[in-house]
């Protein structure tokens, strides 16, 4: 792991922690979200040395973090969604969005299209990863309750 990767992981942890505070999370739930932030980017860094496809890594990380959040939600007796959204803050493609805007301004249509598609791919992979876990758990629990 390079030093810039370590900085990223630390920044991810701090980012999730501060967003958790902005969302008025407290106590154990805030800690769970901050640890989630650490895990999410830590896992991404590890994966990026093995699989060289960013969207796929995003998908895997989102799925793992959703699973983590579902487990934490059961333990802490709280909804899972706040933990997922706060843990995945480091994966929000802010940089990608910025470069999309910048290329749109520069007027090179091909670069813009390329950047826009890659931003959408990341956002889509993130959402799909969450959905795979939460939707299955939701549908599963809804089904069980209706019996």
């Amino acid at each position, binding site marked *: 792991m390079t030093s*810039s990767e370590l*900085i*990223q992981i630390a*920044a*991810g942890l*701090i*980012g999730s922690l*501060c*967003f*958790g*505070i*902005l*969302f*008025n*999370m*407290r106590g154990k*739930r805030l800690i769970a979200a901050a640890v989630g932030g650490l895990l999410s980017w830590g896992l991404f860094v590890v994966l990026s040395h093995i699989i060289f496809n960013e969207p796929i890594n995003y998908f895997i990380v989102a799925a793992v973090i959703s699973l983590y959040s579902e487990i934490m939600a059961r333990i802490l*007796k*709280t*909804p899972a*969604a*706040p933990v997922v*959204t*706060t843990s*995945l*803050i*480091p994966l*929000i*493609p*802010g*940089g990608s*969005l*910025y*470069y999309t*805007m*910048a290329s*749109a*301004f*520069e007027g090179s249509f091909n670069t813009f299209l390329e950047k826009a598609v890659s931003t959408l791919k990341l*956002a*889509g992979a*993130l*959402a*799909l990863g*969450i*959905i795979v876990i*939460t*939707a299955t758990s*939701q*549908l599963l629990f*809804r089904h069980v309750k209706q019996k």
Partner: protein
Amino acid sequence: MEKLLDSIMDIGEQMLINGAEVHKVEDSIKRMFSAYGTKRTDVFIITSSIVVTIHTDDKAYTQTRRITETTTDYEKVHRLNELSRSICKNKYSDKEIRNQLAEIAKSKKYPLWFEFICYAIISGAFTLFFGGGIIEAAVSFIIGALVRFVILLCDKTVKNKIFSKFVSAFIATSLAYITLRLSIISAVDKVIIGNIMTLIPGIGLTTALKDLLVGDSIAGLLRTIEACITALAIAAGYFAVAFLTGGII
């Protein structure tokens, strides 16, 4: 029954206002009413409205709630969720629910100055995250706190989220551009990205896509459009500066 409907609607309303997901609120309302033994409960929720009809043996009652402003307060969501669970177990009277709701309304919040610091830290941290240096992070830190101040001003005056995002993005980008021209920083993109991270509707978009795929199509579409417009507002703020200065690099 009518009073009970009223107080349970209030729980649902508060959940939605404080950032709970649509299907979660729908589910909670249904469960609470079935605990009280209503024959049938029809719940229709989108991000801006709740409609509930409960059927008892001889009558049907309907109420609606219009939701205009939403925030994200997960402490309240957590406590409302706890309340709804214990209602299913203990079947409180409507008065008791009122008292509990009043208690939740008073739940603690972090002080405002702490939010300023959080905005600053988030901006600084993500500038480092995307490869900026220490000086860029420090500049971003200060701009982050100023962005929170701009949002505060917008909240007090125009009360329009889209507009406030546009102004925030505009201010953040122009301040970053000024520090670049003063040769304080060398990588303006890292500073802007750090500040964009506090404005971006990333969470909105993921929840939106999730709503769509779980089957809450209308709520999902509304949220998607909201997220897209917010992203456009941020882009507009950036473009405004870019046009005025003839390009930011």
